[in-house]
């Protein structure tokens, strides 16, 4: 057994646990400012998400179900672990499975409250996972076909970026990224905006410090997903990292633009289009890489 693997995973997770919330918080703050500007407003300060979470941490500690807390802690832990594995160059599929585990615990946490609104949100969140999962799996397969290993670190030995031969899978990823980032038109399980039919969906019964953990989890997830976007651009040339960062910024802006310009769709449309995207973009790319 290789101790280096465990060591790098642990160190990676610790670093990620410190850095990702900071980056994710800033991303979220920028998101809110940019959204506001797109709507002709000034918007909050960059650190607003941080203040929100600090406020939530200071609120009273209550819970509807006794086990909700455990599930949320596990969800947060696994999202950090997924990020740690990813950014320490670990196995891409493992990252996908661990982040899915995190989503599962988030869903079960919502179910465990047995609140009607949270349950509807949880059911929709499950649908969201089902919608994006095929594309994500096909994306990792395409990655493997290009790089020759599932290890994310493998891109550093490539002499061209993954996107050159896996651009279709990248487009597919962009499509489901909107679901993963919980952006409109696919924010069907819980929306940022008030006055909707399921109150706050999955997070309806999560309050105070629990909600703060959920917020941090979303930040961390966003950083991880942007990492997935970036890894398509990185190769042996160090300049590619800068290119990847620019690409990530542009893609994030693009997602905010989508969020502000599309009305929420029904789950049927989400499932249909996400699966069509997976079948065409993912399926064709995998087939092309396998046989060409």
């Amino acid at each position: 057994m290789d101790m280096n693997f465990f060591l790098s995973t642990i160190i990676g997770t610790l670093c990620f646990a410190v850095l990702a919330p900071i980056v994710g918080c800033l991303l979220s703050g920028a998101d809110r400012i940019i959204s506001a500007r797109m709507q002709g407003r000034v918007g909050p300060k960059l650190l607003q998400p941080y203040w929100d979470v600090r406020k939530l941490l200071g609120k009273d500690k209550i819970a509807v179900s006794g086990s909700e807390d455990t599930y949320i802690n596990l969800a947060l832990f696994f999202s950090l672990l997924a990020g740690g594995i990813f950014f320490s160059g670990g196995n891409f599929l493992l990252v996908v499975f661990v982040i899915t585990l995190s989503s599962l615990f988030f869903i079960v946490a919502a179910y465990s409250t047995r609140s009607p609104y949270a349950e509807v949100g949880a059911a929709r969140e499950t649908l969201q996972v089902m919608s994006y999962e095929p594309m994500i799996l096909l994306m990792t397969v395409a990655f493997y076909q290009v790089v020759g290993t599932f290890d994310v670190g493998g891109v550093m030995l490539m002499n061209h970026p993954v996107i050159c031969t896996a651009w279709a899978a990248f487009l597919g990823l962009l499509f489901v990224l909107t679901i993963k980032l919980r952006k409109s038109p696919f924010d069907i399980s819980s929306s940022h905006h008030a006055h909707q039919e399921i109150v706050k969906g999955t997070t309806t019964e999560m309050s105070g410090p629990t909600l703060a953990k959920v917020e941090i989890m979303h930040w961390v997830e966003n950083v991880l997903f942007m990492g997935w976007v970036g890894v398509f651009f990185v190769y042996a040339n160090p300049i590619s990292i800068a290119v990847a960062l620019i690409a990530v910024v542009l893609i994030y802006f693009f997602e905010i633009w989508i969020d502000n310009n599309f009305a929420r769709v029904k789950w049927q449309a989400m499932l249909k289009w996400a699966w069509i995207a997976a079948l065409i973009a993912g399926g064709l790319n995998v087939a092309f890489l396998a046989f060409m």
Partner: protein
Amino acid sequence: MGLIGFLILFPLLSALLLFFIKSDTARDAIVVVSVATIVVATLALCIGNLSTPPVYFEFDSQVVEIVCTILSVVIGVIILWFAWKYKNVLAGVLGAIQLVAALIFDFAVAPGVHVEQGLYIDSLSVMMAFIIGVIGSGICLYALGYMKDHVAHHSEEEDRRPLFFALMFLFLSAMFVIVFSNNMIWMFTGWEVTTLCSFLLIGYTRTEEAIANSFRQIIMNIAGGLGFLLALYYCAINMHTLSFVEFIQMGISAPAVISLPVCALAFAGITKAAQMPFHSWLLGAMVAPTPTSALLHSSTMVKAGVFLLVKLAPLFAISTAPAVMVVLIGGITFTLASFMAISQSNAKRVLAYSTVANLGLIVACAGVGTPEAVWAAMFLILFHAAAKSLLFLCVGTAEHHIGSRDIEDMDLLFERMPQLARNMMVGIMVMFIAPFGMLISKWATLVSFVDNHQVALIILLAFGSAATFMFWAKWLGKLSGIAGHPANVEKTVYKSEWAAIYTMTALALVFCVALPVISSGVVMPYISGVYGYTMMALDSDILALMSILSIAVIFVLLAGSTGGSKKRKVDAYLAGVSVNNADRTYRNALSQEATATVRNMYLADTFGEETITPVAVVSTTIIIIGAFAAALATVAALL
């Protein structure tokens, strides 16, 4: 070899005793003692033969040949008798054909071929023996308590428990025959005994539905049996051998020759493993008492089908027609059965579809036929056996105590049956999520598909897995709900049921944690025995990490789900004035009392059986016909 003989004969003895002894206390004692003996013998066999290379025993007996012939006749007569009694023409015709064909084979063809090494043992049969001997007999133990409740709930029925328990043990014996026989005639006899046992067990309650479903099972499985028989004829006449290992070796050196018999055997395996288009027999099988379903789904019957296919894996790697058939049927079955599972709220139906789906994955792996794929297939078999039997036992117990097997009625099970719900949750998680076993096996499956450029399978797996997440997650969620403090209804569960359930949970978890050890101690030796080299789809580092994580998750969940949170408990938000928040009743905008209820989504319009079954049946039937046509063409070309 003594232990092998003991494992085959001892359950037979128990079956005989149980058939003739009617007293409850005596039955309890016999079952407990038999189960304990079988478990001890199985463990002794497994420990004694850990990492064993394939060993073939010189064993050939005229007596066994005669017994096989007699059994063929008995099976044929029983089927014909039932077909006559219930006026089922198709079953009668198929049964008659099989009886005649088997007799001609036994008297005219088989005597010319001599198999010296009748029995064998390798790591795959050790693993199968563990599944049959420990999980299968654990289910027999569970059946003791369950059948008492069953008889109490169905007082209008005749108490046929002696027959029931006799069949359960006969089943185990037949399964041991299948996994240890190198003589294909003996294997075929075991095969047919399992078909007959499940026929009788499915029809146990003798209701109209049960009879209809048992005939569906027997018709499909006799068709499969005829495929097996066709392969036997071909082997005996064209290849002059009935030794399974020789058959495989000859096939590897001359792939064209074995194209037809491999197709025929694969067809037998596909029917037995309830692959599409034959999946309906397994769904029908759930009319039987739950222990029967558990036995059929986890450790016997369907596992015989996939066992045969995994044994044939090296031939699939080189023989195109059967491989394409097996790979495509397995892949399509996995995806479409997973889709249909989404639309079901009946827990047993969800489990049945999930079984069909997972077997599909095993079948697809066998069809790919590389060492990596066989590695994945063996782990899928192992984890599926433990987790699925656990889930069936849990659903059976829940059904007797909450009066329903509908997942929607399992609302609040976390508090109504706290121990049971936790066991069920473990079973569900082991079935579909990292870091537990089934997911790791699926992961290995994916890697082996990618390495072999099986693009269709990759896509089928991606969509099927997404559906898998959906139907398990919503069930898990339903179980986890906490509201109010409903009465605990699990105090009357029998001790034997708890013993079996906790054993299955422990097994499922031990398999997860011990995954790296099982890989090097059981799975690798088999693969190196068959292929001469080993290859693993996953790094040992990842296996170790998963093993550690599964311990961590279980520990945290058990510690945390006891409801020990120190936070102040508050009511749920109901968008109105709560009347009784624990029951989720509130006063609505019209000042009337209303109850907030939520059902899970079943997406019946998209994933309903009516939509998907025709697609499944038509596509897989075409594939089977095409593969047989190709195999026949190969044979014709040889002539």
